[in-house]
């Protein structure tokens, strides 16, 4: 745990990813007076309200005006501040898309963008509030770093790492009801360095965000039920991508299944596919995610099941790739 931090693992396990991030940011605010926080009428929803309470003079609610918020953050960074801004992932990546690209990434300014309620986590909010394109959009911007913490603990680790990270950074967290993967803060988190959650030799599942826990549990069940050895990689950083971990997995397991709460186009699966194709390694690849459609309405758990990015969907995908017969009850739909 970083020195001077006021939280422990028990605190973090009870917090959502956004809350954990907010809590760490409040601590960092003591040490870094140049940290400023902005939101667009979502201080409560994005959980940065704790920073607003702790440092009202360094917190700016910009109202329902995301474009202005993003560029205002750029202006603050130009004058030496470390701005952290938060809004829903769909608005950060799309409503203020050009501002992120042109005002933050192009001049390479030190702005951290937290997209909350990412993926399908807005559930019955529907397509307008789902964000299944943000990773593809953000990773196409030069100078941008893109991170998807797996849970609150990893979000806290990212918060710590982000403060000394120079340049633009986008990360996404869910709405906040996602169960944690990690049960300890005591692991090495590095932006750009994938983490192996389980060793395995038959196939590798590369997941990010909320799908990591699902992949870990699917791997355990597959080992028990089908005697399959599944490697699970938490690819928390989508850019810069840990290509070494991908190519090693390709070489050692020959099969890769990617799982993400995102369109299968352009996100984690797309990035892994690019890496494999360019390296020219023989490897079977399957991408799980939202299959290039606008998402339907339902609770997140229902949507994860519908799009096959939870335990059963991952098990089914693994079995298909390993030519293991799939039972009807494995059928997610």
């Amino acid at each position, binding site marked *: 745990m970083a020195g001077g931090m006021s939280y422990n693992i028990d605190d973090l396990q009870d917090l959502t990813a956004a809350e954990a991030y907010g809590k760490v940011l409040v601590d960092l605010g003591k040490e870094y007076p140049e940290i*400023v926080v902005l939101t667009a009428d979502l201080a409560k929803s994005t959980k940065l309200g704790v920073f607003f309470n702790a440092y009202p003079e360094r917190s700016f609610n910009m109202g329902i005006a995301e474009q202005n918020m993003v560029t*205002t953050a750029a*202006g603050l*960074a*130009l*004058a*030496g501040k470390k701005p952290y801004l938060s809004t829903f992932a769909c608005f950060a990546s799309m409503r203020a898309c050009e*501002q992120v690209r042109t005002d933050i990434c192009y*001049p390479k300014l030190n702005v951290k963008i937290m997209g909350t309620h990412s993926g399908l986590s807005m559930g019955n909010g529907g397509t307008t509030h789902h964000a299944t394109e943000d990773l593809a959009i953000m990773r196409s911007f030069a100078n941008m770093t893109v991170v998807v913490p797996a849970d609150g603990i990893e979000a806290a680790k990212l918060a710590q790492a982000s403060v000394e990270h120079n340049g633009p950074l986008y990360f996404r967290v869910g709405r906040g009801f996602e169960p944690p993967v990690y049960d300890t803060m005591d692991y090495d988190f590095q932006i750009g360095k994938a983490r192996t959650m389980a060793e395995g030799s038959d196939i590798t599942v590369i997941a990010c965000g909320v799908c990591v826990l699902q992949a870990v549990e699917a791997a355990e069940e597959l080992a028990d039920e089908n005697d399959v050895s599944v490697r699970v990689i938490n690819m928390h950083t989508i850019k810069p991508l840990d290509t070494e971990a991908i190519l090693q997995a390709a070489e050692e397991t020959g099969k890769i299944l990617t799982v993400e709460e995102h369109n299968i186009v352009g996100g984690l699966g797309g990035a892994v596919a690019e890496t494999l194709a360019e390296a020219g390694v023989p490897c079977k690849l399957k991408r799980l995610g939202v299959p290039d459609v606008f998402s339907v309405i339902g609770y997140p758990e229902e949507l994860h099941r519908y799009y096959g990015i939870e335990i059963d969907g991952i098990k089914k995908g693994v079995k298909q790739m390993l030519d293991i017969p799939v039972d009807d009850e494995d059928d997610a739909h």
Partner: protein
Amino acid sequence: MPLHNISNRQELVSFLKNKCVDIRKMIVQLTVTAGGGHVGGALSMTEMLVVLYQHIMNIEPSNPKKPDRDRLILSKGHGGVGICPVLCDAGYFPKSEMDGFNQFLSPFGMHPDMNKVKGIDMSTGSLGHGLSICVGLGLAARLDKASWRAFCVLGDGECNEGSVWEAAMSAKHYKLGNVIALVDKNKFMIDGPVEQIMSIEPFEEKWKAFGWKTTVIDGHSIEQLLDTLENLDPPDSQTPQCIICNTVKGRGVSFMEGQGKWHYGGLDELLEKQALEDIEKTR
């Protein structure tokens, strides 16, 4: 601190007027070098930029990143061919650096890049962004209890962009008297007269309705620019200030003045000669 040491008012006005003639000639020549440029809107904002950089702003061209400097954000970023001669003349870089303007791998192009051109405080080009940058700068200066200002030069057509008004709303909300908007109201956008394409009137009333202290002046009058900019409310005042500068597109060149088609254009030898002669007559 002004870049000159002239104390006599008349001398100052005459110095700045002459500067504008020199700068306009540089703009025309740069447009030729560049193989074309946004010359109309460059010539319309010359007095604004010359008065700001030569006399009003606290800057140090030998130390372009001086922390307590005044900032200027060229929100009408297509004015690259208009601002670079002003920065060059102020001493940020030698004229020879602009020799390859617009050419392959040149640091200088249509829209200025803060990481490549000394004196440029922010990379701009896409319209409607600059005033939000100034809001961020203004907030940062407030947090640092600093007394520098953030000047923003906008086009009038640019004010069609909704984000300009998001920024205007927030500058007033955060009481940023250290943010100064200057609108180069040359009355033309690419497709024609602003009032025909997308009307912005009543323009002064709009800024006032957004809570800005608003004045309208002749943007080609050195005297009016000096009077207005020397008498701004102090940076710690609570109201952002907008100066609407009535200007003429293509100012100083007979065949360009008030001609929408000279929003962007190139000049052959004959036109260049004519333009330089026209400008010299304004001395």
